């Protein structure tokens, strides 16, 4: 066996950091807190790099056993870690982006209250996320799964004094619970039928099975339930509603958790259990449809949003939709590829947006921005790169991944491709809209005032309900470039999203999709004779360029998608740079449809009416008044009252008079004697 | 005719004597005679101990003591007795009468009872029956003496309480507390001797001390058993038990007029007096029996003399003890009460226990 890698160190290091900061951080200075947090998250990153450096020499999958957790009969769950190409990629993304965002946060959160709290949560999140990624069985994965949920709840509600933040946190948690419910049932099914939760055991027993025809059967059920969980965690229809509200949290959190890492956990989980999905065509189709719809749906909403972070949130949802579409068509490697690139450019976008917000002293409404190009050049250029990347303009990262997904989607069905293409166009449109509204034109905001009247007005612009990060205006009023501490991660991420795609250049462009090859062992390890269907699509493709459809067609499709991106750019340029009054007219023209889109299709209201209100009413009626008050409280109270009554009647025996006691004793003794005699004489 | 008998020590032998050799009537007759004799001797001894005390103390204080009645005032006790008899016996008011009367009787009874088990000499044979010079020889004689003396407290205590005066009450309290306290060390001091001669029968104890060791030294417990510490403790406790100087707190003239018998007069007072002196004699007897080898001593001459000499030696020892009593009274001052208690609890008791342990070790090693 290969030498011991000490994988356990990777999750534990951030945990140590979290513990130190959590228990002692209150007394630490901000420098110390930041140092601790960075040290441990960085150490985790270094560990991952070490592992990666030795990875080629490993026999994959490399399983590291730590301890036995549960042993019940034949069923056993271990604390053990599972390292293969997939989890290695995830590790690199999580620790790398995570570390960068840690650095960024130091600058961003510098003047916030609860500095140590923030980094404690952040390290805690790293711990759980890494546990999730490294898990070698579904249960340990579930620990991480729940843990990241907890961390995200804590971080969304970081400004817990603000009602909207607190409720947003709750919303995220509850919606996730719905997903976790599905996940749990899937786990139970697995235990019932395979008697184990270890990946390799489950998969080993799954591989012999053929694909379930007719879309019914155990694997389908498991797949669908897993998809429910994934939808909850990765904000897919119908459980996406929590993600936009999650933007209440600090921007680095949005970048790390709600763009780069946590929300992609669903994708990771689906592709981790691809063996099951490949054999459940029905489930795969559902995944694909959900992904596609989500992509389109979120994109349309994204067009009309004016809050810069909300726009990014919806774009995140739609990009996640892309990934699920990829998984749904069996192109798991493509999904993971897009996951990685998306982590780069979306993280960058969020960080840049945070930098913008920071610059204009907490303003988040794009209508209050504009013309920032010259004022904050670093942010502008990095954000530009990110925008082009997400818009799918070659040769940036987004182009390759998105293009691959579209191509594979087409191979599955042209419908996917068409919608995907339209979504790509929409994406490009609203991203450039954001770009233009933010950086071009003339400044429409009020932060200018800061330059005349010093920082005291900084408080003036903290309107109620706005995130506390407004106070960034404090001390250095006016529009200003962010500190170097925040700029460096931007640059690094910009570089990554510039070049990140080149490891996956498809064969059609003269590259030899190295990324796909790298992930090959994971996704092709399950080839068995007679397995047909979606699984095959991935496999065939993976063995280099396809026979039947040559590079030509693929090149055409690439061109089309690029065109779509450029079209979006042009349209946005027309509408938001040339004549900015046009959008209002269009909106007026569209009328009710526009309203619906602005109000996100009234989905939240719908849910409120459908689920929340009945739930509240029912629990108030049955659980609260019915069970809690009339049964539990009643039993306790009546018990107490009864005891009171009885003792009140009996306590007169306790007269305190010695001779009375003696009398009782004598009577009792007489009774005992009589009983004994009676027993004896019988 | 009289001749010295062979000592019988075994319990079985004693029973044979009680059970077989004697039918019940003769036993009762003999016992009655012995009792009367013993009582007469004891009471006379008590009377003349008083005389002796007055004489000796008088000489110690450069006085003559009683001289008028008879030669050397030898008839003085008789005169005292008559005086006590004929004085008016007045009972103060407010006394609790039943106990006021009962108290002196209890005291004197307890004092006189203990003589019943004290052997004064060897067996003698009159005609066909061999009689021990002892009213009765039970094998728990020593325990009986202890019990009776411990009962003697009631006389004093009740007298003090029933006569309903603060002097008496204080005297009674002191007496009872003091007696209880010193009884412990008294008993413990005897245990050493008991361990040396594993028996409670005074006769056995005495027999065990017969003979000599190292050719000359008699095998008395005080020498052979190394019980001189126990002897000392016994002496101290005995003085306290009999309320004698230096422990006569209950009847301290200078503080409480006369202690527990302040309110008593005439015959009742005489009874207390008799009780005290009888107790003295008992204590002396027990001390000589346990520590000084009882009646052992050189025996010679014709059989009758041989039979009576042990009694003489015994009486001699008792006389010596009484003289020491009187001597101490003439010499030592009185303790303070807290000193008394401290002495009893903090000095005598630990000493007695230590002596007990040492003796136990010695016995265990010898065995």
């Amino acid at each position, binding site marked *: 066996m290969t030498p011991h890698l000490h994988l356990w160190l990777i999750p534990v290091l951030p945990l140590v950091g979290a513990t130190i900061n959590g228990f002692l951080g209150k007394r630490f200075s901000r420098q110390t807190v930041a140092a601790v947090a960075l040290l441990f998250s960085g150490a985790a990153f270094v560990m991952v790099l070490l592992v990666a450096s030795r990875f080629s020499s490993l026999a994959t999958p490399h399983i590291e056993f730590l301890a036995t957790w549960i042993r019940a009969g034949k069923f056993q769950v271990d604390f053990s870690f599972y390292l293969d190409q997939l989890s290695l990629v995830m590790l690199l993304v999580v620790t790398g982006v995570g570390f960068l965002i840690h650095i960024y946060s130091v600058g961003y959160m510098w003047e916030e209250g609860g500095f140590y709290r923030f980094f404690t949560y952040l390290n805690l999140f790293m711990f759980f996320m890494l546990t999730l990624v490294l898990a070698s069985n579904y249960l340990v994965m579930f620990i991480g799964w729940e843990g990241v949920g907890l961390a995200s709840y804590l971080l969304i509600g970081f400004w817990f004094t603000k009602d909207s933040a607190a409720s947003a946190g709750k919303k995220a948690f509850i919606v996730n619970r719905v997903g976790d419910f599905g996940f749990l049932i899937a786990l139970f099914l697995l235990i019932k039928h395979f008697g184990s939760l270890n990946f390799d055991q489950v998969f080993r027993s799954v591989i012999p099975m053929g694909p379930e025809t007719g879309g019914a059967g155990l694997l389908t059920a498991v797949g669908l339930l897993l998809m429910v969980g994934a939808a909850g965690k990765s904000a897919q229809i119908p459980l996406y509603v929590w993600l936009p509200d999650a933007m209440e949290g600090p921007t680095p959190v949005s970048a790390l958790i709600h763009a780069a890492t946590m929300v992609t956990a669903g994708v990771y989980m689906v592709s981790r259990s691809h063996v099951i999905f490949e054999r459940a065509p029905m489930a795969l189709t559902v995944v694909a449809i959900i992904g596609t719809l989500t992509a389109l749906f979120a994109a349309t909403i994204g067009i009309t949003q004016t809050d810069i972070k909300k726009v990014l949130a919806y774009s995140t949802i739609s990009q996640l939709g892309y990934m699920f579409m990829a998984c749904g068509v069996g192109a798991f490697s493509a999904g993971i590829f897009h996951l990685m690139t998306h982590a780069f450019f979306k993280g960058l976008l969020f960080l840049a947006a945070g930098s913008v917000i920071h610059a204009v002293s907490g303003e988040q409404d794009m209508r209050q921005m504009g013309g920032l190009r010259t004022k904050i050049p670093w942010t502008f250029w990095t954000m530009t790169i990110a925008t082009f990347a997400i818009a799918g303009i070659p040769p940036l990262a987004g182009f390759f991944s998105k293009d691959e997904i579209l191509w594979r989607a087409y191979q599955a069905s042209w419908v996917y491709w068409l919608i995907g293409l339209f979504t790509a166009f929409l994406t490009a449109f609203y991203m450039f809209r954001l770009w233009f509204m933010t950086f071009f034109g003339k400044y429409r905001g009020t932060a200018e005032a800061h330059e005349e009247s010093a920082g005291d007005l900084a408080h003036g612009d903290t309107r109620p309900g706005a995130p506390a990060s407004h106070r960034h205006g404090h001390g250095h009023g006016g529009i200003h470039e962010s500190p170097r501490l925040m700029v460096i991660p931007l640059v690094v991420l910009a570089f990554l999203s510039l070049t990140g795609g080149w490891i996956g250049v498809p064969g059609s462009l003269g590259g030899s999709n190295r990324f796909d090859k790298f992930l090959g062992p994971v996704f092709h390890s399950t080839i068995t004779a007679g397995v047909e269907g979606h699984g095959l699509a991935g496999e065939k493709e993976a063995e280099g360029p396809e026979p039947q459809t040559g590079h030509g067609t693929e090149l055409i499709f690439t061109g089309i998608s690029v065109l779509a991106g450029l079209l979006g750019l042009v349209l946005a340029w027309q509408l938001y740079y040339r004549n900015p009054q046009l959008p209002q007219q269009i909106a007026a023209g569209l009328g009710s449809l526009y309203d619906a889109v602005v109000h996100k299709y009234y989905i939240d209201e719908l849910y409120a009416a459908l689920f929340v209100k009945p739930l509240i009413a029912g629990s108030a009626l049955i659980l609260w008044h019915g069970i809690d008050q009339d049964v539990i409280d009643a039993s306790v109270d009546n018990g107490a009252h009864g005891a009171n009554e009885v003792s009140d009647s009996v*306590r007169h025996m*306790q*007269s*305190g*008079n*010695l*001779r009375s006691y*003696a*009398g009782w004793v*004598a009577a009792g003794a007489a009774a005992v004697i009589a009983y004994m005699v009676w027993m004896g004489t019988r | 005719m009289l001749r010295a008998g062979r000592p019988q020590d075994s319990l079985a032998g004693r029973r044979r004597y009680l059970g077989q050799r004697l039918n019940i009537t003769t036993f009762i007759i003999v016992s009655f005679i012995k009792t009367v004799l013993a009582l007469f001797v004891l009471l006379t001894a008590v009377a003349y101990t008083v005389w002796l005390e007055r004489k000796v103390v008088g000489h110690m204080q450069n006085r003559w003591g009683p001289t008028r009645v008879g030669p050397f005032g030898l008839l003085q006790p008789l005169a005292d007795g008559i005086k006590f008899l004929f004085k008016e016996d007045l009972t103060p008011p407010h006394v609790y009468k039943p106990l006021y009367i009962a108290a002196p009787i209890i005291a004197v009874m307890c004092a006189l009872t203990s003589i019943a088990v004290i052997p004064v000499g060897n067996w003698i044979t009159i005609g066909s029956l061999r009689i021990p010079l002892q009213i009765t020889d039970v094998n728990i004689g020593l325990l009986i003496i202890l019990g009776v003396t411990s009962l003697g407290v009631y006389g004093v205590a009740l007298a003090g309480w029933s006569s309903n005066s603060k002097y008496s009450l204080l005297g009674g309290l002191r007496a009872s507390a003091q007696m209880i306290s010193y009884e412990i060390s008294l008993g413990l001091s005897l245990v050493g001797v008991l361990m040396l001669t594993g028996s409670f029968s005074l006769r056995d104890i005495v027999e065990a001390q017969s003979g000599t060791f190292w050719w000359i030294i008699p095998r008395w417990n005080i020498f052979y058993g190394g019980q001189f510490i126990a002897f000392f403790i016994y002496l101290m406790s005995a003085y306290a038990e009999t309320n004698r100087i230096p422990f006569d707190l209950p009847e301290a003239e200078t503080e409480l007029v006369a202690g527990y018998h302040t309110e008593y007069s005439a015959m009742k007072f005489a009874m207390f007096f008799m009780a005290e002196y009888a107790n003295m004699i008992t204590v002396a007897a027990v001390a000589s029996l346990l520590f000084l080898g009882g009646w052992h001593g050189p025996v010679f001459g014709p059989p009758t003399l041989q039979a009576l000499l042990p009694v003489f030696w015994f009486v001699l020892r008792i006389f010596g003890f009484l003289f020491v009593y009187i001597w101490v009274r003439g010499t030592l001052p009185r303790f303070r009460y807290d000193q008394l208690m401290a002495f009893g609890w903090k000095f005598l008791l630990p000493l007695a226990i230590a002596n007990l342990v040492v003796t136990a070790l010695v016995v265990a090693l010898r065995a």
Partner: protein
Amino acid sequence: MVPISYYLILSGILFACGATGFLIKRNIISIFMSIELMLNGVNLSFVAFAAQWHALSGQIFVFFVMVVAAAEAAVGLAIIISVYRTRETLNVDHVDLLKL
């Protein structure tokens, strides 16, 4: 020649007298003495049974009972003294604060 049962009945009578004393006496000291009386009755029964079964252990028990009784008397009388100091009474009917 006395039947064993006589001794036992005597002890029973003594015990009953003690119990009655405990019930009817008001003076703490008298109550204590009633307890001692009960103990004595029990002791007598011990000795009688010892004689019946020819087992000396019965007499040994008597010693233990005596020791316990002595200890109890010492502590009890100390308690009585302290009670009398605080309450100025020996009547148990007046010492009944230990109630709800």
